[in-house]
């Protein structure tokens, strides 16, 4: 789904300003794409499958900055940078959350493959980051210990 949209955007870029203006409405509609299947997946593997990013290989070019131990799972700051050249998307997952996929970002020309966010974590878990570059997928993980879980009341 996302791959398709990205393709469309590239085509739109190539077609020039007039056509882009004509495409504005459909592009805006596409902007509301939300991968229901991936976000509804109850395992990280499923979610990655649905994102079309399974089979990622470990890569130390993905840097996850997060506390080793979080006092409260309601707010866990996570900063992700991909140093892999040509990175076009980053997905952040918390393996043990009820729905592991936390967020997925597509970076177009003009943006660096970097994001910092606050995530909820129900319990101690691996945080999994999958970056896509040149059609290939790469992964890095980091364990964050959680003292008080942060998904419920």
């Amino acid at each position, binding site marked *: 789904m996302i791959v398709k949209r990205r393709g469309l*955007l590239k085509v739109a870029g190539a077609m020039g300003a007039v056509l882009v203006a004509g495409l504005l409405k459909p592009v805006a509609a596409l*902007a*509301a*794409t*939300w*991968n229901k299947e991936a*976000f509804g997946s109850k395992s990280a593997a499923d979610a990655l499958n649905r994102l079309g990013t399974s089979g990622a290989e470990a890569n130390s070019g993905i840097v996850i900055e997060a506390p080793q131990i979080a006092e409260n799972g*309601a*707010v*866990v700051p996570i*900063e992700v940078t991909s140093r892999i050249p040509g990175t076009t998307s980053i997905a952040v997952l*918390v393996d043990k*959350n*009820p*729905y592991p*996929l*936390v*967020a*997925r*970002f*597509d*970076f*177009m*020309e*003009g*943006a*660096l493959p*970097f*994001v*910092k*966010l*606050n*995530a*909820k*974590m129900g319990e101690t878990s691996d945080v999994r980051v999958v970056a896509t570059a040149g059609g290939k997928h790469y992964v890095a993980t980091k364990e964050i210990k959680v003292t008080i879980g*942060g*998904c*419920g*009341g």
Partner: protein
Amino acid sequence: MAGPMKMRATLAGGYTDVRVLMTHPMATEQQTKGQPHFIQNLTVKVNGKTVVEGQISQAISRNPVFSFRLSGGAKGDKIEVSWLDNKGDTNKTETAVA
């Protein structure tokens, strides 16, 4: 429903740092007995051109705060961030790179 947003975009060595804050409950299924309420889509534009598209879940903390980095950038560049939640609410904010 759409409470205030706040954003700042500043030139840092070689890139533009964008930090954006949004007012939103980001309520999970567990908290709401099956009626979650959360932002799903996030768009960052520079001078009208989309540079980041985010899809996010109920596992983003209440009152979301995001940082992004833009390559290059110049003083006065217009940054716009907008969001759309699962109930159809939207909000957006704009700022110029300082």
